[in-house]
């Protein structure tokens, strides 16, 4: 059963365009020019309970706008949205107590006070019973390993520690749905891994539905079985992650280790040379011609080793975004 249903969602903006300089500013006082921006253009999807969805797209694709409509922050231009049976922009407290929004580039914690103060405030705002609050807090603190930082002013915490505290503040009321907008942005690789592990564990333990937007493909690969790709306000793919490869990757990569140095132009007769630094070469060939290309390489070239691979998810997604051929 779907707990999030989006049908033909549209969100259009008028954005003011100003000419540079003082004269441009004065002119705009009397005659303002506007650009129409189609941030979300006829998006539809359904999400079931407990799913962990990756919502990916290039900058300006409409990911965050969609999340903001789902969490009731924005009124749509048109379309229908139902989250847990509620219309989000009605902003009913009963609905708002069941979801949480974490934005990687914004924080809700009081800057000059220990994070604990913000947790207590959130407990009151969400009317979380005392024993439930303590239990949830203890579990989250344990999962995120932040016991020693609870009484330190937020402004004195590192970015990674602060993000962990943001997550706790967002989860103190045990929401059923989590909207995570770039939660790992700016974090180092170790902290990114810890955040991913936490999100995975939270999803597993509490069966929370999680929609995650991220520009880091490692986040998507590790966490999301299903991805929705959005570009220029439209959904261009909605399905399992491995289906992206089948749908969009019409090439394979042949990684060759040569036993003898050869001219690069000879490799070009096999396919598109992606990389050549002796003894290693990487050649991209059409999926349908892989076996023929492999046979030719082994027959006509001094090959010490040959490996056939799918292109990386990152390359495929880049191809989808830019419309360029990965080959």
């Amino acid at each position, binding site marked *: 059963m779907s707990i999030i249903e989006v049908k033909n969602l549209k969100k259009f903006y008028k954005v003011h365009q100003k000419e540079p300089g003082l004269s441009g500013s004065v002119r705009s006082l009397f005659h303002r020019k506007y650009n129409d921006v189609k941030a979300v253009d006829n998006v539809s999807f359904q999400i079931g309970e407990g799913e962990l969805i990756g919502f990916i797209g290039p900058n300006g694709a409409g990911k965050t706008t969609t999340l903001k409509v789902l969490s*009731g922050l*924005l009124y749509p231009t048109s379309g229908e949205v139902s989250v847990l049976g509620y219309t989000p922009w009605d902003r009913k407290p009963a609905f708002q*107590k069941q979801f949480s929004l974490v934005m990687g*580039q*914004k924080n809700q914690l009081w800057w*000059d006070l220990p994070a604990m*103060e913000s947790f*207590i*405030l959130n407990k009151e705002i969400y009317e979380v019973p005392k024993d439930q609050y303590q239990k949830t807090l203890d579990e989250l603190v344990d999962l995120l390993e932040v016991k020693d930082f609870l009484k330190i002013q937020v402004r004195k915490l590192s970015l990674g520690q602060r993000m962990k505290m943001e997550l706790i503040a967002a989860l103190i009321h045990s929401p059923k749905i989590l909207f995570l*907008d770039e939660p790992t942005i700016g974090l180092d690789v170790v902290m990114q891994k810890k955040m991913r592990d936490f999100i995975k564990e939270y999803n597993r333990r509490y069966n929370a539905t999680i929609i995650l937007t991220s520009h880091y493909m490692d986040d998507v690969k590790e966490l999301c079985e299903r991805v929705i790709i959005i570009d220029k306000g439209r959904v261009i793919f909605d399905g399992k992650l491995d289906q992206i490869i089948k749908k969009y990757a019409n090439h394979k990569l042949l990684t060759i280790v040569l036993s003898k140095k050869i001219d690069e132009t000879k490799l070009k007769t096999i396919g598109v040379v992606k990389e050549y630094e002796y003894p290693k070469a990487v050649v991209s060939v059409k999926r349908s011609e892989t076996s023929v290309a492999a046979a030719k390489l082994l027959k006509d070239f001094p090959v010490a080793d040959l490996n056939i691979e799918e292109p990386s998810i990152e390359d495929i997604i880049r191809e989808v975004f830019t419309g360029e051929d990965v080959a």
Partner: protein
Amino acid sequence: MRSLKHFALLFNKIYLARLGKDFSLPLVNQLFQITGSFCFFVLHLYAFGLLINKFSFPGWSRPEMWVLLFTFEIFTYGAFYLFWRGFNHTVIDINSGAFDLILAKPITSRFLSFFRGGGLHNIICSFFGFICLGVAIVSFQIPVTILTIFLFLIFLSSSLWIMFCVGVSFISLNLKYGRLNSTIGAVFQVQEAYKYPSTAYHKFNLMIWIILSSLSLLTTLPALVLLSKPLDPKLIALYISFFIVSTYISRFAWNTGLRYYSSASS
């Protein structure tokens, strides 16, 4: 009732947390603020004393003007304590997108936006105002009763509510039009109008009289009640109308503004 209790509890938590934050800053910060506010308070009294020595306001004796001044001080510092931070930060948050996190919370956004705690120095100066008011009552032998004090506090609270509604109405414009810095200043620039009794504006035409008198009643009416002076029914009607209209307009402006809110880019 449960809802009122919830708001009261939250209000308490927010304002205590803000005070806690003020106390966590270096002591010199508090000393600077308190000293600055106290100096402003004293200079204000001095300047006002010069003014009322030179000018008179119809229907108001000098002792009564002092009562009005101290009512003004209590009211102004009280408003600063309750709303100033909220008004400022709401405009900043709307334009930075941080307002999203307020809007996502299961409590009316007007409450969370505007009630964010106040500076320690404001509450101290408001307290000075009460002390000075008490001294004025005793010095000028102004007869007060429990009832007049109670009504004074009721009308003062109503005036603070009206001030809040006026502020929300102005700040709501930011939801649609983006950063309008002038709206914050406009909210508090109107304080010039309520520094003087409503009788000061009797020479203006009707339209201006309505606007200025409505604002002046924010402090005049509580002072009149404390002084047990007769209340003009026209002024009572004006005050009640101001209360109702400002409440309605602020709610309408805020809810309409939210429909236009477009957040900020991530």
